[in-house]
Each structure stands twice: as C-alpha cells, then as structure tokens.
C-alpha cells in the first residue's frame, strides 16, 4: 500500500447543535485523485476547511504526510483552492508573484510554469474582469505554487459552462500527470469526477458513507441484460451451451453482464429451447443512480 498523504481519524465538526462533520475517517494515498462526492451542504467544504486549518475540528485528528503534531508546517506543503480568492486589481502574474512572496517561493520560472500549465500565460487583465473559468484556473495555479505534495480543490467545476467543465477536467488530468501531486477534488456531480478521480469518498450530512476505487465503482454500475423466464435452470443450461458465461440467477431472472448488444439472439436461443420468455430488458445503474442509492434518495439540498 502506498503512503497516505492525508488521513483523518473520526474528524468531527459541530456548529452549535448541528453536526457538519460526524466522525469522518478517510485516507488519501500518494498519487490519488480523490473525488469527494456529496450534495450541497453535505460537509465537503467544512472537511476541507478543517484540513487546511481554517476551522478547528470539534473532535478527531488530521494527519498530513504522516504528521499530526505540527500541522501548520505540513499545511505549508499543501495547496488549496476553496473558491478562487485573489485581489481584484492584480493580473494573473501579479497574483501569483504576490503568493510566491508570501509563501517564500522564488517567483522566477515558477510563475511562468504555472501560468502556462493553466493556460493563462500572456493574460494581462486584472482578476476582477476574469470569467469564472479563468478564476478557477488561476485558483488552481495558486494551489500548485511551490509544488505541494497535496492539493485540495473544492468544487472546481461548479458554475462552469459545458466547455468550461471539459477544459477543467483536462486541466485536472494534466496537473496530475505533470506534477504528480495527490489531488483531493470535491464535487456534487459524480459523473464529472468519474472522468478524473481514481478513488471516491461519498459524504452525506457530514457522514462519510463509503470509500471506493474507480474500478469498484464501475463494477457496481455495470450494464446488464435482465431476462425473466419460466424455467431458470433450463434457460441457464441453454445459454451456457450457446457459449454465454457469467450468468447470474436471481428468482425467475437471469442477469447477463455480456452480450448486451445481442438481445435478439439470446431471445431466439431461449424461445427455440421452449423457454417461456416473460421479459427481457437492459438494466443500467448510472453513477448518479448509484450515488442517490447511496445517499438515500432525492431529498433536498
């Protein structure tokens, strides 16, 4: 197992009577793009605020790079973007040079590298006249200053138009490929995170419901062919004889993970074998459906 760059132990944050985070224990490993998925108000931003030190946890522990004691030092090696925050009158270069001075990083080379990476090289207008997409890009550049080992990005695709979402997705992939940083990215849109993340954590009402790898997530959201028949063992034998494998029987249903595009052929085999075919349909659990099942239905934000 690779080393955990970020680990929380029963992290809890209470505001008065309400619990924004309730015993969140998760681990982000070196090289991960960790997708933190949850609806608005689920606790994603509160989690990030605790990690980067903007609010004090009510209970629990945070471990960055294996260090729990001197978090202020560890946090200096952590980049973050929780809504892009820059001075409105500074242009992208000036904004990053300001942050370089504050962080004690030599701006020569670093600023050019990052502006090039996020596609803002040559932009001279002030931050206040940026589009949302440009602000998000500059926010990511700011988060990457000094080549941090852990980068936290809160809702980087929030509010972007479709092209902006595609660009941001590519940018996150590029950043990961070029810097090798461990990324923690939050969103309430699972299908978008699915295209970039390697592991997922699902959070709802402050509770971490599940951690799952990209591979396992897709195993749970596979498409299948569901066949309802009057004689399950005989139908199963017929299909096996026709070379179809991996058949799962469930009540009067057979579930096939393969041959999804050959439903007519499968139906002919069963009918010609005198099987009573009561129904046949494709079933697909989308990522959204999986997410909604996990968080318990469609009740409010």
């Amino acid at each position, binding site marked *: 197992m690779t080393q955990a760059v970020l680990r929380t132990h029963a992290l809890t944050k209470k505001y008065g009577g309400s619990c924004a985070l309730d015993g969140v224990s998760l681990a982000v490993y070196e090289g991960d793009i960790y997708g933190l998925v949850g609806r608005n108000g689920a606790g994603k*931003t509160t989690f990030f*605020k605790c990690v*980067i*030190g*903007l*609010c*004090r946890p009510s209970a629990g522990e945070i471990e960055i790079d294996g260090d729990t004691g001197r978090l*202020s*030092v*560890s*946090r*200096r090696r952590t980049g*973050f973007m*929780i*809504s892009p*925050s*820059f*001075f*409105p*009158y*500074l242009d992208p270069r*000036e904004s990053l*040079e*300001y*942050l370089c*001075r*504050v*962080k*004690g990083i030599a701006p020569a080379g670093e600023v050019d590298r990052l502006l090039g990476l996020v596609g803002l090289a040559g932009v001279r207008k002030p931050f206040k006249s940026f589009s949302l997409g440009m602000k998000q890009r500059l926010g990511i550049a*700011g988060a990457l200053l000094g080549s941090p080992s852990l980068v936290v990005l809160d809702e980087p695709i929030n509010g972007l138009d479709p092209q902006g979402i595609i660009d941001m997705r590519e940018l996150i992939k590029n950043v990961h490929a070029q810097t090798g940083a461990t990324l923690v990215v939050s969103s309430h849109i699972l299908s978008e995170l699915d295209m970039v993340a390697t592991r997922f954590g699902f959070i709802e009402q402050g509770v971490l419901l599940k951690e799952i790898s990209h591979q396992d997530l897709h195993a749970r959201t596979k498409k299948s062919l569901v066949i309802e028949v009057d004689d399950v063992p005989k139908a199963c034998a017929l299909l096996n004889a026709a070379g179809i494998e991996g058949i799962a029987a469930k009540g009067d249903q057979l579930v096939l993970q393969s041959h999804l595009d050959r439903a007519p052929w499968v139906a002919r085999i069963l009918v010609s074998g005198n099987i009573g075919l009561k129904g046949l349909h494709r079933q697909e659990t989308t990522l959204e459906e999986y997410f909604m099942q996990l968080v318990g239905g469609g009740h409010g934000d």
Partner: protein
Amino acid sequence: MIRLIRGEFYRLLHKKSTYLYFALLAVGYFLVAFVRSGGFTAQSVVDDALNAFVFLPVLVGGFLFAAVYTDDLNARNLAVLVGFGISKTKVVLAKLVCAAVLNAAAFALVPLFHVAVYALFGSAATTDALGSVYAVAFKFYLTTVAFSALSGIVVYGLQRTTFAVVAFVLLAFNVVSGLAASLFGLIDPALRDHLIPGITDRIVSGVVFGSPVAGALVEYIAYVAFAVAVSAVVFHRKEMEF
C-alpha cells in the same frame, strides 16, 4: 512574517488606484492652495498645516487602512494566508507593520509637498516652520497608526469591510475619542489626556519642546499592544469563511 510583509508591499505597490488616489489628492491640495494663495501670510504655511493635516488620518490613513486591511476581506485573502500556515498573530502584526510603514512614508512626504506648494505660491517656509509642519504631521501619523491598530479589532473580529471602515472613520474623525472625552470629563477632565489625541499631543510636545515623553510613549505603546493582543485573540476565535 517578513515574507508576508514583502508580499503585502508588492501587492500594494501594484495597486494602480493608490497612485491615482494620491495624484487626485495632490491636485486637490494644489488647487485649494492656489485659491487661498491670495491671502497668504508668513504664518500661513504652519497655520494651514495645522488646519489641513487634521484630515490626514481620514484622507491618507483611511485609504491606506482600506488598502492594507479591508482589501483582504474583500478578496477573502485572510483565509488564504491562514491556509498557507501563517499564524494569525503574525498576520495581525504584519498588517500593522505595513500600515505603520506606508503611513510613515506618506506622512513624511506630505509636509514636503505642503511646503513645496506653498513656496510655489510665495509662502516659503523657514527651517523652524518646516519643523513645525513636520511636528503636526508626526502627531497625526501617530494617531493614524493607533487608529489602524484599534480598527484592526473590528477587521479580525467581524471580518466585514463596512464595519471596519466605519470603525476607522469614527476614530479618525475623533467621534469615539470625543464621546470618551465627554464621558471622562464627567469623571475627571485629566483623563482626557490619556486618550489617543491627548497622548499624541504629549508625545509631540515632548519631541518639540523637550518635555518628559516617556509616560506618553508607554501609554501609546500600551494602546497599540492592547489593540494587537485583542485583534489576535478575536482572530484566533473567529473561524474563516470563504
């Protein structure tokens, strides 16, 4: 903390509206001097400094206060600084150092500008007059720095731009010290000397006339230290919002 101060100076020197604001202020001052130049006397250069410099804490100190402190609130930069692992106490101290240095630069240049403009309109200053003009500027510099430190409590405690600016303006227009002086006057009029305007008067008198200054200096430092300490405490207690 040095890094933060360097960063702050970098951004403030790249804030173009600073140059525009001070250019407009200079033009306005020049025009007022031009209008008044018909009635200049030998004492005008000092008397007018006494009258005009009253507004420096608001016009110069207020702008610099907004640039140093409230720009951070508008840009949500305090959260960025804390997220970088910079301690809140260091942020409070660095901001006050920036305010003190920038105000020192401004309050050092204003008397020179004043004397130069008046000389241009025929009211040249003697060395003594220049010293007096600088003494007036020094008093208002001290009050501006103290007011910046005190308003910092509102900046860090409430983290709302409007409240912070209103607090500074109320202090700079002596509304707060006026109310306090009235209140103290009911108890013991001598207490008024221990408010910021009274303390800065005593310090400047000490510098100019050689009267004892140590007590006033200690009181002044105590005010600023109190403001810094309270700012740091309220900042530590305040959770950062994005």
